[in-house]
């Protein structure tokens, strides 16, 4: 395995270096813009997005009943993805006045209807799991090793 790992790392360094050479072919000003774009991406994630998610999770665990956590967690992930996908289309920053075939949907409607469907599904899941009996497997899986039921009375 050491040989495979060494090979992967060596190959990776070579391929990455080739990419760097291609990038460095740009004028200095463009290289700076590319570097800034990449760095801002990392900063937005590490210093803004991730802490915001942590705070949201922290708050949600204290406010919401435990049975809500799963659907809310999944719906939140889907909503984050919807927001990321909507950013380049929502206000049509790339709109071209002469070309009606690009960005030709109502993205405000599309985004909010998608959000509504995601949270509607989460609500249905929640109601469904309320109305259906708790499955025995769920109960057993949540029990610790020390959980022992009372012995049946001996006859």
């Amino acid at each position, binding site marked *: 395995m050491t040989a495979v790992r060494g090979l992967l790392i060596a190959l990776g360094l070579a391929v990455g270096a080739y990419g760097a050479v291609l990038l460095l072919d740009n004028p200095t000003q463009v290289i700076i*813009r*590319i570097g800034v774009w990449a760095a801002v991406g990392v900063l937005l994630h*590490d210093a803004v997005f991730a802490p915001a998610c942590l705070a949201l999770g922290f708050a949600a665990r204290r406010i919401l009943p435990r049975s809500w956590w799963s659907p809310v967690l999944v719906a939140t992930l889907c909503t984050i993805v919807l927001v990321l996908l909507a950013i*380049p289309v929502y206000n049509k920053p790339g709109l071209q006045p002469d*070309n009606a075939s690009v960005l*030709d949907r109502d993205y405000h409607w*599309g985004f909010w209807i998608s959000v509504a469907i995601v949270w509607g599904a989460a609500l249905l899941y929640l109601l469904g799991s309320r109305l259906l009996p708790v499955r025995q497997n769920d109960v057993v899986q949540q029990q610790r090793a020390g959980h022992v039921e009372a012995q049946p009375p001996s006859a």
Partner: protein
Amino acid sequence: MTGAKPATATSLRGTAITARVGVALGVAITICFVTGFISHFIQHPQPWFYWPTRPVWLYQLTQGLHVISGIAAIPLLVVKLWSVYPKLFERPIIGGLTRQLERASILVLVASMLFQLSTGIMNTAKWYGFKFFFTTNHYAMAYVVAGAVLVHIGVKLPIIRRALGEPLQDIPTGELAPGPTRRTVLNGTWLAVGVATVLTAGQTVPWLRRVSLLAPRSGDGPQGLPVNRTALAAGVLRAAGSPDYRLTVTNGPVVKAFTVAELAAMPQITHQLPIACVEGWSATADWTGVPLSKIIEVVGGSVDSDVRMISLEPPGPYSRTVLPARHARDAQTLIALKVNGQTLHPDHGYPARLIAPSRPGVLQTKWLTRIEVVG
């Protein structure tokens, strides 16, 4: 990850999730890299690169996959970064040289991935908020991503193997009400990938068109076909509509000029061909026109010659393209005068455009003014 705490978000994280989502992300990145590589070398041909003319939808497939897998990578990256975020603050912050190199490689990996996904999705929406040229830098950064992924796999291989061999390790909490488990996170991730795909893939998958609410294109446009560059933007409206318009075809000293009427008087043929854009949308239409090979025949061109296509559009990156001989002699390659039974709309290349099987839309030259048999 340290064990005995109740199922907080921290204990939902773990190598078991990181490795599984990482494998899916690796697959998505590989598809992106291979299909992007293909698209690059169709546009910048090299002697060693071979690209077939059949099936006619091959480029539609590869480029559709490029954008679909890129969009699928967005939720995968979000979850993968979430699963390892606490590692950013692990001690020692500085550590030894090996640790520094590993951290640097991860910084390069994350930065280059965010760069590729952000510029890629912005390009599909024709939003050029970044002030650098998209294609060359998206291409160059792809090697940085690929290299960083290879280094990352090399460094983490033992951990990956161990994590994939182990169960997801849901931690029992002893509570009656079922809370989220790692299984929940993983299934939620696949669901988010599905949502992202359904909401955008309709720009290239016809039956998803009506539900792809966030796709940059609905698939509609003049004559039922989207447009990337309009006649107005290309500055060709006057020349394309002029009675002086001629399509000049040359083979060395042999020169022949065709009026639109002369082209229309030649035997016409109709083929159903997709037009597939590098930006990930595609649409299939019935194109009617003269086979390019018949026009080349008129000037005595060889079937082994490449053919240069020159647009009325003033010189620019895509105003002229070279069509490889393999595509030039193909029976389905047309100099199209009509689409879906109607004379080409100016935005679709009136009076005449190239349409060839299995080629990027950007190379299907519109508003043809000159065709040169090369060498």
